[in-house]
């Protein structure tokens, strides 16, 4: 564990240096990240500008969901998504060997190597907006809610990470599917909207979408003081099952990996 903490600390430093390499680029990225932090909230603002509620969610509840999504996706882009995109590329070009030969766990080196600090902006802006919407709804947040909120975000990250890892691991069998990452980016946006919205689609598609609705809703429910033990157990259960599944798929897929030269 100590070794991994040391490796991660080194990665944090290296990624920071890479980020500040080009000054103009750094500022345009920072600005665009700030805009995107507000993007989901602006979308809901525009969509609900003429109606007080949709799908049983009030306008402010939907805005809180959108701002929580900014926090969540900020964490996800900061520590996970870019690694997944890189992993798909490494598999496609047959360069996964470089990751597998490192004297650390292959899943760690494949999925935690890049840290995108710029996405931290989304977390900060998302938290500020969430706080604002909570004030507007006269909802207080105590220590318990903070702990539950962090746990719910962590569970959501674990669920989304597991889904992405499972899907990208499967590209080892068919590297030409590496553009599945683009699809995953879009599908991950499902969490931005209430689960009730997806009940309009067919049962088959709704069943596929259910895990994605677990990534965001619990954290928002915590802030709305509408989070039950049953919902917590559901989220933990989904997270545990998907994590084990993702690890197994990764291990099994690696057995079939052949580099470009083999």
């Amino acid at each position, binding site marked *: 564990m100590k070794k991994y903490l040391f490796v991660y600390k080194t990665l944090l430093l290296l990624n920071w240096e890479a980020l500040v390499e080009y000054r103009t680029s750094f500022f345009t990225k920072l600005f665009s990240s700030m805009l995107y932090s507000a993007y989901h909230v602006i979308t809901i603002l*525009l969509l609900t500008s003429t109606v007080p509620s*949709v799908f049983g969610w009030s306008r402010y509840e939907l805005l809180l969901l959108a701002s929580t999504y900014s926090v969540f996706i900020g964490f996800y882009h900061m520590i996970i998504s870019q690694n997944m995109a890189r992993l798909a590329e490494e598999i496609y070009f047959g360069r996964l060997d470089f990751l597998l030969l490192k004297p650390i766990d292959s899943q760690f080196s494949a999925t935690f190597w890049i840290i995108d600090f710029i996405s931290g902006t989304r977390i900060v802006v998302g938290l500020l907006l969430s706080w604002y919407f909570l004030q507007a709804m006269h909802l207080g947040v105590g220590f318990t809610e903070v702990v539950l909120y962090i746990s719910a975000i962590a569970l959501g990250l674990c669920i989304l990470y597991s889904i992405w890892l499972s899907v990208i691991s499967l590209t080892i069998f068919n590297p030409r599917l590496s553009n599945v990452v683009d699809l995953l980016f879009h599908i991950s946006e499902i969490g931005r909207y209430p689960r009730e919205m997806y009940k309009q689609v067919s049962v088959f598609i709704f069943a596929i979408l259910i895990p994605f609705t677990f990534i965001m809703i619990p954290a928002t429910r915590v802030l709305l003081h509408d989070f039950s033990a049953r919902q917590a157990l559901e989220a933990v259960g989904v997270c545990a099952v998907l994590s084990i599944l993702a690890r197994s798929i990764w291990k099994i897929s690696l057995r079939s990996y052949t580099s470009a030269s083999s």
Partner: protein
Amino acid sequence: MLLLLFWQGAIREHGEVYGVWTSSAITSYYLLIAIASSFLIVHIEEDVAFRDIKDGALVKYLLRPFSYFIVKFMEELPWRVIQGLLAIVVFLFFRFIVGIPLPIVHRPLEILLVSGVFVLAFAISYVFKMVLGLTAFWTTDFWGTLSIEEFLFSVFGGIIAPLVLYPSVFARIAQVLPFAYIVYFPVVAVEGMLSIYELLRVLGAQVAWLIILYGVYLLLWNRGIKKFSSVGQ
């Protein structure tokens, strides 16, 4: 798709608020937005920024006796023509096989004006993306600029919702910026939602934006080319 699902629910619950924007009208709108985007939105900016400026491929264009602006246009045009043909196939499929009502203008004068709106929309899209690409002379890494443009286009280009359903402040800003003139106005124009007077106003705004953007292009090109350097044998 997500936006469409959202609107379907919202219209079902509060249909009276949206007036002419019924469930089928909003479905048609998003479908036409998707179709129009495929051939009106030019994707030359990454090519200009990454391949030509960052990787130095611009050198070969500078040595040719043709304008860079024209050559890049000729490189992009076939892609848009192919996408346009595919878009027509998609349109016909949804209109006649799936049966989604996709209303389009049919009077000769409207057809003529709408055709003009489409041609100018494509021209604005091309010049705007060229301008965007040229900013790579100063930024080196282009991703930040690209993200900003995507954000502005989504919010003010009518991608999230028809501009008439926006709060008035947002709608007014969107009508001033060039983004809505690339996809939104061509779509509502082809749907027959604009009067002759409004069509002429849109055409005027498009011409104005085209002149402004081309001026900006010339300015950036003349200044940027002095900063450009490339190495090789």
